[in-house]
């Protein structure tokens, strides 16, 4: 065998393969005859096999907690009852994997039609790339322009078109053990000074004031969000998230050096926070070793039912009463893929999910807050009412650090916070690094 033809064969193969990957991703808009898909989809109708007469809509969700999944399935079956000629093909994937896999889904030749997703920057990313279908028509026809609060509509709009359907959100607050507060004679603090006094009292009685788990760093970002919004105001905070303010601004440094670092140095947090996940951090509160946890309402997913009477939350204390009040209220919702193959069905499903009835059900079952103003909140628990009141009284509602800013900035920022936690004195150099990243990401031509 001579060398030459062999070598040529190898080179030609390589070139062909290279050419294949340099091509545009495969986004075909396949003409589908009518609206029926026959062979590729296994419709989940037990015992009936592949159904050929119905049209379908493909629905992908990141809900995997047991209660949300059950609620979802109930809603889907309701939808199917009301629309007997449409079958919903549902897939649930854990959210961490969903976040990675979604880009594979959206570029497939038959993408999912309706997908769950997060509002804020994360949705923005796909909207800007043209991966999300405009649903302004659905907003119009379903009357959401009237029924959804302006803040949420703003969240879903880009360049005058609506792309996102926000359906549920939840609050963040300082959760505390009622019994520990009572034992130590503490009232839920409303100002910063009150909070510091409470921490001192707790500490002198052998209880660590705050627990936190930063193995996944986002709980630390909660502290940053609130401290920044309380000290510098939500407008500054949001501009920082959007890359319009500088990380080396003295206002940012103040948050760390005058408020956060002293708390760490005074021992107001548990040791080794980066060793713990959120459930492991909750352990400290269950054992009474710690009293408080700045966390979202989903803490109830971990908190043992037996102790439900012994937990409540208060609003993150006010530091400067002249500063507008901002709160974190991450919002979840749905969108339709730009290349969806079953547009009519997808819009029908979306309309259903955005209706007052669906949101009522979701809210009643899961304790999250509905966006639709037509939902009756009188049946909500005391805690939910408290949450609604707090958010309605807020001057601004943010989406949380890692949803308000770009993913890369969020990662850098949160890593910086953990590094700061380990070594508070290094904050200046950390902020300088973050500023360099910010400039690179937001000010350099992409």
């Amino acid at each position, binding site marked *: *065998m001579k*060398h030459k033809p*062999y070598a040529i064969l190898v080179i030609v193969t390589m070139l062909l393969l290279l050419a*294949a*990957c340099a091509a545009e*991703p*495969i986004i075909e808009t396949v003409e589908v005859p009518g609206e029926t898909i026959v062979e*590729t*989809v*296994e419709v*989940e109708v037990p015992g009936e096999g592949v159904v050929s007469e119905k049209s379908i809509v*493909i629905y*992908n969700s*990141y*809900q*995997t*907690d*047991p209660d*949300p*999944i059950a609620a979802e399935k109930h809603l889907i079956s309701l939808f199917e009852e009301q629309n007997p000629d449409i079958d919903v*093909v*549902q*897939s*649930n*994937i*854990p*959210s*961490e*994997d969903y976040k990675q*896999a979604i*880009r*594979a*889904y959206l*570029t*497939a*030749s038959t993408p*999912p039609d309706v997908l769950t997703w997060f509002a804020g920057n994360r949705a923005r990313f796909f909207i800007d790339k043209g991966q999300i279908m405009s649903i302004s028509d659905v907003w119009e026809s379903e009357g959401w322009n009237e029924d959804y609060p302006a803040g949420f509509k703003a969240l879903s709009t880009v360049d005058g078109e609506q792309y996102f359907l926000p359906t549920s959100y939840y609050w963040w607050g300082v959760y505390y053990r009622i019994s520990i507060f009572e034992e130590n004679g503490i009232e839920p603090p409303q100002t910063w000074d009150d909070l510091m006094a409470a921490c001192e009292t707790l500490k002198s009685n052998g209880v660590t004031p705050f627990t936190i788990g930063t193995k996944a760093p986002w709980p630390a970002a909660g502290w940053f969000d609130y401290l920044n919004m309380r000290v510098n105001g939500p407008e500054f905070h949001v501009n920082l998230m959007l890359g319009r303010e500088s990380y080396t601004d003295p206002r940012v440094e103040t948050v760390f050096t005058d408020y956060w670092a002293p708390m760490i140095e005074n021992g107001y947090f548990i040791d080794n926070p980066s060793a713990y996940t*959120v*459930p492991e951090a*909750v*352990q400290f509160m*269950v*054992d009474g070793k710690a009293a408080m946890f700045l966390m*979202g309402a*989903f803490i109830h*997913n*971990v908190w*043992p*039912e*037996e*102790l439900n009477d012994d937990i409540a939350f208060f609003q993150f204390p006010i530091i400067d009463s002249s500063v507008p009040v901002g709160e974190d209220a991450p919002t979840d919702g749905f969108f339709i893929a730009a290349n969806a193959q079953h547009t009519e069905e997808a819009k029908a499903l979306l309309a259903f999910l955005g209706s007052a009835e669906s949101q009522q059900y979701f809210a009643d079952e899961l304790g999250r807050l509905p966006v639709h103003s037509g939902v009756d909140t009188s049946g909500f628990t005391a805690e939910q009412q408290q949450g609604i009141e707090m958010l309605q009284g807020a001057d601004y509602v943010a989406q949380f650090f890692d949803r308000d800013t770009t993913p890369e900035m969020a990662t850098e920022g949160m890593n910086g916070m953990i590094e700061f936690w380990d070594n508070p004195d290094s904050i200046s150099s950390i902020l300088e690094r973050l500023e360099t990243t910010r400039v690179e990401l937001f000010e350099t031509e992409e």
Partner: protein
Amino acid sequence: MDRSITTTNTIRMLFSKKPKGDKTGFFTSPKRVLAYIALILFTLLWITPILIAIGTSLRTYSDILLQGGPFSMPAELVLTNYRVAWERGGLSHYLPNSFIITIPALFLTLFLSSLSAFALARFRFRGARLILVMFLAGNMLPPQVLMLPVFRLTDALGLYDTYWALILFHTAFQLGFCTFVFRNYMRTIPNEMLESARIDGCGEFRIYWQIMLPLILPAMAALATLEFTWIFNNYLWAIILLRSDSLKPITAGLAVLQGQYVTDWSVIIAGALMASIPTLLVFVFLQRYFLSGLTLGSYK
């Protein structure tokens, strides 16, 4: 007795009742007894984390929290975690999928890699080293980086969301490693065995099929175990190359047990323990193939 080495004879030998090894005669000295006890203790220490897992799987997470952490004494033991993992993880309909994907991929991998290993071990030809390095190189990239290109390739081939996507991909991906192992193992087989067959006029494929394959059974068993483990337990490719719920293997099913904010760890652990059982069964079953000197002894 026909002691010639053929595939059928070897299989016959392996499945016949082994004369009971003199197991009772093992404990011939106090030294042996002590060594055995030490071994048992070592093994228990080795699998401590798994024992912890079993213990945890019998408690609810609430119980763990309320009693003071994973290493506290449980207030009560329950089996609900297993039931929940089975139901919520959809194991009853995902488990067949795991097998439908793993078994063909396993056989294809072993067959194709032993074929190529045979060529690489037994012949000298142009490009042999290049091909060997190529097979190895395929394993040098972290699989995650191949995610998007493989996804697009699968989609372009029209195989997206089919069993074949996974079967073919796993086969291709494992080919490199298995070829290398087989090749090296085959090189320990003395050439005379194969030469005599060749002189007798056997075609190369027959030599491969009837002579080489029985001789490499231990390597086959080792790789079958390892490959079963990796393919059966693989998660990444199942979520990338599949979308339909009805095709998913149990790894994807169990992943659903991980919630968005919080996860019931007891249930996940119960699920993980259940998922380990098939592989461990395969391992125990294949142990009979690790017989020292069985095949070589038959040379005489």
